[in-house]
C-alpha cells in the first residue's frame, strides 16, 4: 500500500523501470472513451514526482518510485558487497584444486572470511551510528548493526554445524565459543566487577561467577573463587572443593587425543563426585556455591534460575549440553526433542529478538532460523532467512558456500535452476540498479551456469551509458563474453548519441565498431556535407586511419579515399592524386552528387605547369563531365545558377587545354 494515496479516490497504475517500479495514481476508466471524473487531492508525502496541474498549484497526482533492494544504496554496506564479491569469486575459482580435508579447511576459511567482512562492516556501521547526530540516522545505523550482528550469529552457527560439520567433542567447544562471542549483554557487568577494588565485595560478584560457569569459562571462575577465598576465610574449604571440582571437570578439547569413550567415562566419575559433595551438604551454608554445584551437575532448574544471565535460549541450550552431555553428536543435536521444550519454557526476557522486521511476540524470526539450524534443516534456514532479511546478500552467499560443501540437494525451481543459482541471480540483479556495483553483479552472473548469461544480457543493456568510459567498460564485458547482440546495440546507441551531439568522429568510430553500414553511410554523408560547407575535414586522424574498416560501407570507402586524395595532393604527389581522383569516379566509388566537387578538385591539377593527367585520363575526365551534365534534366539546367554554368565552362576549358598540351607532349619524341 502506498502511503498518501487515497484508495477510494484513486487507483494505482504502474510500470517497471530497469531496477525499480513506478507507481502512480490515476483513475482508470478513461480509456474506451468514457468521460472522467476529475477529483482533487493533496498528496503531502515527500519524495514523489510532481506532475500535472498548471499555474503553480500543488500537484494533484503523484508518482512514487518504489525501489527493490534499498540496501544497495547504503554507503557502508558497499564495503560488504565489494569484499564479499572478492571472496565469492575466489571460492568459485579455487574449487577444482582441493579435495578431502584440505578442501574442508579451505571452506571453513572462506566462511571465516565472510564473517570477518560482516564484522568489519558492523564496526563501521557502529562508528557511523555513534557519530551520527541526527537521531533518525542514528537509529537507522543502529538497526543495521543489529541486523549485521544477527547475520553473523546465524552464519557462525551454520559454519559450525554445516561447513565445519564439527563432530562430537569439538562440536561443544565450537558452540561454547559461539555463545561466548555472541552473548555480550553481560560483558559490562563482568568488566565492572573485575575492575573493582574488591571484586568479592561487589554486589554482582556471584553473578559474574555464574556467568563464567554458565559459559564454561572455568579458569576465570576459579580465579574469582580464589579472591573470595582470600577475602572470606570462613568459606575457604568450600572454595577449595569447588575449585577442585572445576579444575577436574573433563571437557572435550581440540588438541586432546582422548577418545570420546574415555571422556565419557571420566565425566561420569566426575559427575558422581560432584553429586557426593552436594549430597554431603558441603555447600549448604553458601547458597551461591550450592547453586553453582547444581549447575555443574546439569540441574535444569538451577540453570534456569540464572535466566537473566543466560539472556537467550540458545545459551541455555549450550549450557545444558555442557553440563549434561558434553559429548553430544551432531545427529543427537538434530533430534533433541527438548529443543521445542526449551523454546516454550524459556521466553527471552528482553527483545534482543527485535532484530528483524516484524515484532511478533512469539518465536521471532531469529529464533526460528537458529532452531532450524540446530535441527540441520538447511533449506528451512535459507527460506527463513530469505523471508526475514530485506536483502539477498546473506542467503545468496551462504547458500553458495553450502552448495560448495555439497549440502544442498538439487531443489528444482520454476526455471529448472537450483536454489543456489536462484538466489545468486536475485542478488546480482539487485546490484545492477547501482551505478557502480553492477560490475560486481557481472561476476555473479558468470557463475550461474543456467541463466546467468541471459540475465546478464538483459541487465547489461540497461546500464546508463553516461560517459564514454562507462560505455567502453560495458563493451569490454560484452566482448569478453561474446555477447555480440549487446555489443552492436551499445555501439549503435553511442553512435546515435555522438551524432546528436555533433561529434561526427566519435559517431563514426562507434558505428564502425557496431559494424553498422547504414549508420556509417549516414555519418560519412555528414562528413562530406561538412566538407562541402567548410572546405575542410574534421577528425582527420580517424579518417586517415580507417584501414580495412573503410570497406564497411561504400560511402565510408569514398570518404576515406577522398581524404587520401587530399593528403596526396598536400604531399605534392600529384600524379598519384590524379589517378586516385579519376578512379573515384570511374569505379563509381564516388556518389554522383559528389562528382562536380571532384571535378572541381581536378582543376588545380589541370592548371599545373607540369602536365599531370595523361591523354587517356583527360578523355576520361571529359567523359565524366559530359555524363554529369548530360544526366541533368532541362529543368535542372535551368535552375543551375551562373556559378554552376561557369564552373562547367571552366572545366571544359581546362580539360581542353590539358588535352592539347598532353597530345603535344606525348607526340613529341624524347630528346629531340
Amino acid at each position, binding site marked *: *500500500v*502506498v*502511503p498518501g494515496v487515497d484508495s477510494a479516490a*484513486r*487507483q*494505482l*497504475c*504502474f*510500470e*517497471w*523501470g*530497469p*531496477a525499480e*517500479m*513506478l507507481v502512480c495514481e*490515476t*483513475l482508470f476508466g*478513461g480509456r*474506451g*472513451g468514457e468521460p*472522467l471524473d476529475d477529483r482533487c*487531492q493533496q498528496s503531502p*508525502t515527500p*519524495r514523489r*514526482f510532481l*506532475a*500535472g*496541474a*498548471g*499555474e503553480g498549484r500543488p500537484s494533484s*497526482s503523484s*508518482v*512514487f*518510485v*518504489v*525501489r*527493490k533492494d*534499498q*540496501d544497495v544504496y547504503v554507503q557502508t554496506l558497499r564495503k560488504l558487497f565489494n569484499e564479499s564479491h572478492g571472496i565469492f569469486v575466489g571460492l568459485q575459482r579455487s574449487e577444482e584444486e582441493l579435495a578431502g580435508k584440505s578442501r574442508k579447511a579451505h571452506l571453513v576459511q572462506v566462511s571465516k572470511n565472510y564473517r570477518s567482512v560482516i564484522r568489519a562492516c558492523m564496526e563501521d556501521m557502529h562508528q557511523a551510528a555513534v557519530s551520527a547526530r541526527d537521531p533518525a540516522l542514528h537509529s*537507522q545505523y543502529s538497526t*543495521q548493526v543489529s541486523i549485521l550482528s544477527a547475520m553473523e550469529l546465524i552464519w557462525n552457527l551454520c559454519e559450525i554445524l554445516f561447513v565445519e560439520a564439527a563432530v562430537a567433542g569439538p562440536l561443544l567447544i565450537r558452540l561454547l565459543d559461539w555463545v561466548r562471542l555472541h552473548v555480550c549483554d553481560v560483558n559490562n557487568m563482568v568488566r565492572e566487577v573485575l575492575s573493582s577494588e574488591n571484586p568479592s565485595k561487589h554486589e554482582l560478584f556471584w553473578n559474574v561467577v555464574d556467568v563464567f560457569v554458565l559459559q564454561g569459562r572455568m579458569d576465570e571462575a576459579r580465579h574469582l573463587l580464589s579472591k573470595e577465598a582470600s577475602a572470606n576465610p570462613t568459606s575457604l574449604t568450600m572454595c577449595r572443593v569447588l575449585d577442585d571440582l572445576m579444575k577436574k571437570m573433563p571437557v572435550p578439547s581440540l588438541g586432546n587425543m582422548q577418545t570420546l569413550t574415555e571422556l565419557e567415562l571420566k565425566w561420569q566419575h566426575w559427575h558422581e563426585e560432584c553429586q557426593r559433595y552436594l549430597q554431603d551438604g558441603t555447600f549448604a551454608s553458601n547458597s551461591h556455591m550450592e547453586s553453582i554445584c547444581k549447575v555443574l551437575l546439569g540441574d535444569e532448574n538451577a540453570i534456569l534460575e540464572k535466566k537473566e544471565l543466560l539472556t537467550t535460549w540458545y545459551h541455555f541450550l549450550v549450557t545444558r549440553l555442557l553440563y549434561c552431555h558434553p559429548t553430544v553428536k551432531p545427529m543427537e543435536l538434530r533430534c533433541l526433542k527438548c529443543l521445542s521444550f526449551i523454546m516454550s519454557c524459556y521466553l527471552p526476557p528482553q527483545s534482543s529478538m527485535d532484530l528483524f522486521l516484524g515484532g511478533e511476540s512469539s518465536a521471532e524470526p531469529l529464533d526460528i532460523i537458529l532452531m532450524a539450524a540446530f535441527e540441520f534443516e538447511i533449506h528451512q534456514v535459507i527460506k527463513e532467512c*530469505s*523471508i526475514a532479511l*530485506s536483502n539477498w546478500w546473506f542467503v545468496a552467499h551462504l547458500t553458495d558456500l553450502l552448495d560448495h560443501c555439497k549440502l544442498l540437494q538439487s*531443489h528444482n525451481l*520454476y526455471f529448472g535452476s537450483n536454489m543456489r543459482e536462484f538466489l545468486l*541471480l536475485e542478488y546480482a540483479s539487485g546490484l545492477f540498479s547501482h551505478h557502480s556495483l553492477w560490475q560486481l553483479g557481472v561476476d555473479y552472473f558468470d557463475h550461474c551456469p543456467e541463466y546467468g*548469461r*541471459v540475465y546478464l544480457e*538483459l*541487465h547489461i543493456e*540497461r546500464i*546508463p551509458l553516461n560517459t564514454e568510459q562507462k560505455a567502453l567498460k560495458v563493451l569490454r564485458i560484452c566482448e569478453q563474453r561474446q555477447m555480440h547482440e549487446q555489443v552492436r*546495440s551499445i555501439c*549503435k*546507441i553511442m553512435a*546515435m*548519441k555522438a551524432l*546528436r551531439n555533433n561529434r561526427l568522429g566519435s559517431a563514426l568510430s562507434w558505428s564502425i565498431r557496431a559494424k553498422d553500414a547504414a549508420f556509417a553511410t549516414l555519418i560519412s554523408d555528414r562528413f562530406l556535407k561538412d566538407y562541402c560547407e567548410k572546405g575542410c575535414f574534421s577528425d582527420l586522424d580517424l579518417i586517415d586511419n580507417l584501414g580495412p574498416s573503410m570497406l*564497411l560501407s561504400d560511402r565510408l570507402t569514398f570518404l576515406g579515399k577522398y581524404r587520401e586524395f587530399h593528403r596526396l595532393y598536400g604531399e605534392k604527389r600529384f600524379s598519384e592524386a590524379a589517378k586516385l581522383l579519376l578512379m573515384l569516379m570511374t569505379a563509381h566509388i564516388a556518389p554522383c552528387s559528389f562528382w562536380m566537387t571532384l571535378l572541381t578538385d581536378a582543376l588545380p591539377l589541370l592548371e599545373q605547369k607540369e602536365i599531370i593527367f595523361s591523354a587517356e585520363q583527360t578523355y576520361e575526365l571529359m567523359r565524366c563531365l559530359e555524363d554529369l551534365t548530360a544526366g541533368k534534366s532541362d529543368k535542372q539546367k535551368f535552375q543551375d545558377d551562373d556559378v554552376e554554368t561557369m564552373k562547367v565552362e571552366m572545366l571544359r576549358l581546362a580539360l581542353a587545354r590539358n588535352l592539347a598540351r598532353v597530345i603535344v607532349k606525348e607526340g613529341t619524341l624524347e630528346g629531340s
Partner: protein
Amino acid sequence: MVQTSPVTLQHDAQMDYYGTRLATCSSDRSVKIFDVRNGGQILIADLRGHEGPVWQVAWAHPMYGNILASCSYDRKVIIWKEENGTWEKTYEYTGHDSSVNSVCWAPHDYGLILACGSSDGAISLLSYTGDGQWEVKKIGNAHTIGCNAVSWAPAVVPGSLIEQPSGQKPNYIKRFASGGCDNLVKIWKEEDGQWKEEQKLEAHSDWVRDVAWAPSIGLPTSTIASCSQDGRVFIWTCDDASGNSWSPKLLHKFTDVVWHVSWSITANILAVSGGDNKVTLWKESVDGLWACISDVNKGQGGVSAAAEGQQNEQ
C-alpha cells in the same frame, strides 16, 4: 484567491530504458518528461500537441535516439524526438477513428516500429523507413468494439542462433499480442509482409484491459499475462516454438477490475494493479503455482512494497 485550475490525472508513467528519465502523461493533454537521476525530479519538457487526455506513453530503444510515443483520446498518435537538446513532434498519425488506447514499440531488432491499439477496433503498425518517413499498416477490425492493449513478443531468431554476417538482417518472425473489448487476447504474426491473426485466446468473460508479453530468458516457452474487467489475471504459456498451443493458468481472481499487468525485465516477477487499489507482485513457485510476494511479512526475499521503500531507508 480561488484556485480554479482543473485537476489533472496521470494515466501513465514510464521510465526510459536506463531509468534516468520518466515520461508521464495525463488528462490535461500534456506529456511531461523528467530527469530522475539520483532521486531528483527535474522537468525537462512539457509536450503539448494532443487535444484530449493522453492514455499511454512508450519509450523507443535508445539506439534510435530519444524517442517517445504517446496516444490519446483525440485519436492521435504522436511521436516525439529529442533533437539538439529540445523535444519536438516528429510525426503525427491520425489514422484512427476513435480513441487510441495503447502504444507499444517493437523489439529494436525489427527496426523502429510502433503498434497502436484503438477503440475503433483497429491496430496500426507504424514503421520508420528513414528520412522522417513512416509506413503504415493497419489491421482493421482486430477486436470488435475496441482494442485496449498491445504488447510485442521478444525478438527471437528462429532456428539456429549463428551470428549473421553484418548487414544482413536475420529472418525474425514478428509477433505481438493484443487485448480487446471482445474479451479476447489475440496473437498476430507477420507473414510475407502481412499481419495475420495467429491465435485467439479465450478465457476472459469481460473486456481485456491489458496484455503483457514476458521478456525472453532463453527458454523455448513464451508467456503472456492478460488482465480483464472480469477481475481475472491469466498467465498464458506456449511450450512449443511454433506457437500453436497456448494454455491459460489463472493467477488470481480479484474482487474488482484489473487494469494493468507488467513484467520485470527478467520476467520473474509480474506486477498487477488490482482492482482493490493495490499493486501486488507475483512470482511463480516451485510447483507452478503463482504466489503473491508483495506482502513484506510473508514475502520471499523481502521485495519491498511501496511503504517499505519509502519509509525504511535502509
